[in-house]
C-alpha cells in the first residue's frame, strides 16, 4: 500500500501546539527530551514530548510503564534526580516562563505553590515517622512561614476539605493508621494545600479498589471545579480517562503518538497503538472470543527500534516505518497522530 497522493504533511512546529493561538497556555511542554545515563548506556526516556494545558482543563497522559509519562511529569515538577537524568533539549513554560532556566530556589517557589503533585503510592510517599497533621502543616510552615498552631489548624481544615471523617481527632495519627483511600486523601490534601494552579496526579488510584477509586476521582473533580485548577492525570486505565479527561496524550516509548480531544480518540483513534489499546478492552458483545492483543513487547529504552518505535508491533507497518521516524501529523486543529498511515488507521481500512 502506498501513501495516498497529495498527502502533504502539515508538519507543525511543536510551539503551535499550545492550544489557542496567540495566547500562551497555562503550561506548555515543548519538545522535551529527558535521558538517563546508565551503566548499559543512555536511556532516552522522553523524546520530544509537547503538550499544553489551560486553566480548568484535564489532560490525561496515557501510556504503559516505561513510556515516559511519569518522567515528563517529574521534569515539570523539577523532582528528577539529575544526574543520572539529563534534559538535553526542550522547554517547560509555565505562564510563559521556562521553568528549566530558573534557579533551584525559584523553582521551589513554584513547586507546591503553583504546581503540585499527587503520587501513586501514598504509603511510600508519606513519611511514616511523622503524623499526617505535621506533614500537611509542613506545607504552610515552609511556604507560608506560619506558626505551628496556625499551620495545624490549617491542616485540620484541609483534612475536612478532602472529607476525612473526624479530622480533628485524626490529625495526630500516623500514615499507617489510615486506610489506602484515606492516605490518598491526605496526599491530595497536601497537594492542594497552597491552592496550586496545576495538579499533576500520577496514577492516583492505581493502588486502590474501584469503589475507593470512584470516591477519589469524584473528590478530585470537585476540587477542580471549586478552584478551576488544571489537572494532568497520568494513568494507564482507559476507563478513568474516558470518565474525566478533556483531552488525551497517548505516549509510547517516550513520544506522544496521539494527541486529541477525549471523544475523538475513543470514537476513532488515529494511531495504531491507541487503536490497539482500545480494542484490547474486553467488550460485552465479544465475550467468548479471543481478545485483541497488541503483539510483542514494549520496547527497551536502551535499544529502541529504528524509525517508528511501534513498528515491530504494528499491523499497519510498511517499509517506510522501519526507516523513518513519523512526525506528529496534524489531523485537525486539536488533533495529531505520529503515524505515517494515520489516514488508513482513521478509516479503519487495511491493517
Amino acid at each position, binding site marked *: 500500500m502506498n501513501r495516498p497522493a497529495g498527502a502533504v504533511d502539515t508538519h507543525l512546529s511543536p510551539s503551535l501546539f499550545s492550544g489557542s493561538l496567540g495566547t500562551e497556555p497555562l503550561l506548555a511542554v515543548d519538545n522535551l527530551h529527558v535521558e538517563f545515563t546508565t551503566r548499559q548506556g543512555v536511556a532516552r526516556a522522553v523524546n520530544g514530548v509537547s503538550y499544553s494545558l489551560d486553566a480548568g482543563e484535564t489532560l490525561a497522559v496515557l501510556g504503559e510503564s516505561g513510556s515516559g509519562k511519569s518522567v515528563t511529569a517529574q521534569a515539570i515538577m523539577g523532582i528528577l534526580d539529575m544526574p543520572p537524568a539529563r534534559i538535553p533539549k526542550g522547554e517547560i513554560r509555565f505562564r510563559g516562563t521556562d521553568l528549566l532556566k530558573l534557579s533551584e530556589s525559584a523553582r521551589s517557589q513554584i513547586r507546591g505553590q503553583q504546581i503540585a503533585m499527587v503520587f501513586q503510592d501514598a504509603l511510600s510517599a508519606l513519611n511514616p515517622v511523622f503524623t499526617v497533621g505535621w506533614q500537611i502543616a509542613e506545607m504552610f510552615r515552609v511556604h507560608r512561614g506560619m506558626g505551628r498552631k496556625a499551620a495545624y489548624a490549617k491542616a485540620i481544615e484541609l483534612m475536612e476539605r478532602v472529607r476525612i471523617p473526624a479530622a480533628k481527632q485524626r490529625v495526630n495519627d500516623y500514615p499507617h493508621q489510615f486506610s489506602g*483511600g484515606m492516605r490518598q486523601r491526605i496526599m491530595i490534601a497536601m497537594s492542594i494545600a497552597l491552592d496550586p494552579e496545576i495538579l499533576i496526579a500520577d496514577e492516583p488510584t492505581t493502588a486502590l479498589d474501584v*469503589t475507593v477509586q470512584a470516591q477519589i476521582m469524584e473528590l478530585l473533580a470537585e476540587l477542580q471545579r471549586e478552584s478551576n485548577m488544571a489537572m494532568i492525570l497520568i494513568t494507564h486505565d482507559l476507563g478513568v480517562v*474516558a470518565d474525566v479527561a478533556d483531552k488525551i496524550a497517548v505516549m509510547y516509548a517516550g513520544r506522544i503518538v496521539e494527541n486529541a480531544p477525549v471523544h475523538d480518540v475513543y470514537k476513532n483513534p488515529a494511531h495504531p497503538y491507541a487503536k490497539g489499546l482500545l480494542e484490547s478492552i*474486553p467488550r*460485552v458483545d465479544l465475550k467468548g472470543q479471543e481478545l485483541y492483543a*497488541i503483539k510483542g*513487547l514494549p520496547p527497551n529504552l536502551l535499544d529502541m527500534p529504528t524509525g517508528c518505535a511501534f513498528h515491530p508491533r504494528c499491523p499497519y507497518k510498511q517499509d517506510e516505518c522501519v526507516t523513518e521516524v513519523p512526525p506528529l501529523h496534524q489531523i485537525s486543529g486539536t488533533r495529531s497522530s505520529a503515524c505515517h498511515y494515520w489516514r488508513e488507521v482513521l478509516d479503519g481500512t487495511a491493517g
Partner: protein
Amino acid sequence: MAPQGEPILEVRDLVKHFPLTQGIVLKRQIGAIKAVDGVSFDLHRGETLGVVGESGCGKSTLAKLLMALEQPTSGTVRVAGRDLGSARGAELKGIRRNIQMVMQDPYTSLNPRMTVGDIVGEPYEIHSEVAPKGDRRKKVQELLEVVGLNPDHINRYPHQFSGGQRQRIGIARGLALQPEIIVCDEPVSALDVSIQAQVINLLERLQNEFNLAYIFIAHDLSVVRHISDRVAVMYLGKIVEIGKDTEIYDRPSHPYTQALLSAVPVPDPEGREHRERIILQGDPPSPANPPSGCRFRTRCWKAQEICAEQEPLLQIRPGTDHESACHFAEAHDVVHVS
C-alpha cells in the same frame, strides 16, 4: 461450556478466622479476623468462576484455603469428591496435585536464583510419578511451548524475561502437574495493559485445550466478565451474590454489586455526564468486628431495621433469577446507559 455432571470442586460453609491475641507469654485470644465466614459454591469441569470484591474481603484467603495452604476453621473443601480437610499424607498430596495456583506478582513469585527449567520442573520433584527423571527436561520444554515461550530458553533466569513472559512461566508451573483446577489470584493485574490481553487469551486457550476449571480472582470487573461463566461477589468474608455472568452484570440485585459495578469507569466518554454512579461512603468495616445482621448495611442506602437484626441468607429472592444475600434484593441494571 454448560456445567454438567458432578462438580469438580465443592466448597461448603468454609470459615477461616485468624485469631487476634494479646500478651506475649500467655497469649489470650481477644478476637478474630473473620477473613472468610461461611462461603459455599460449586465449580464444574471446564468452568470459570470469577471472584470479585474489594481488598480485605477474603478473596485471597479463600484461594489459600482451596490450595490447603491454610487450615479452615470449619467447613469443607471437596476436590473431585475427596475431602481436602481430612486428607493426610499421600492422599493430601494426590488432591493437591489436582489443584494448582497462578500467583499475582510474576516479579516475586519466581525464585530469582532458579532457572526457568528448575522453576517449571520443580513440581515434578514432589510429584515424581507425573514425570520420570529422564523425561523432565522434555516435559518442561513442552510446557514452555504450550504457554508461548521459546523452549530453548529453559536455562535462562527469571530476570531475563519481561513481566508478561514471567507470568507465562508461572502459568507453565501451574500446568506442570496436569491439574483440573487452577486458582488464578489476580493473574493480570501486575501487567501492562497491552500485555494483559495476551495473558487472558492464553488462559482461555489453555482452558479449552485441557478442559481446566478456573477460580479467577480479580478486581478488574471487565476482565472477570470476559473470562467467567459465573461470578461470585464477596464482601467482608461472605459471598453476597453469585450467578451467571449475565445475571450479575446485567441484572445485579445486591446493592453492593450495583455499587461495585457502577464504580467501574466505562472506557467510553460518550454519555459520561448521565451515567449512574453509586458512590459508597467510607471504607469497609473491619473484618475483626463486622456489623450485625447484614454486613453491608453500614454503607447501604436501602438499610432498614431488619438488616441489623437478621442476616440475609444467600438465596434466590423474589423477582430475581440468581442467589443474592439482601433482604431488599431487586434487579437493577447499572452498567448500561439508557
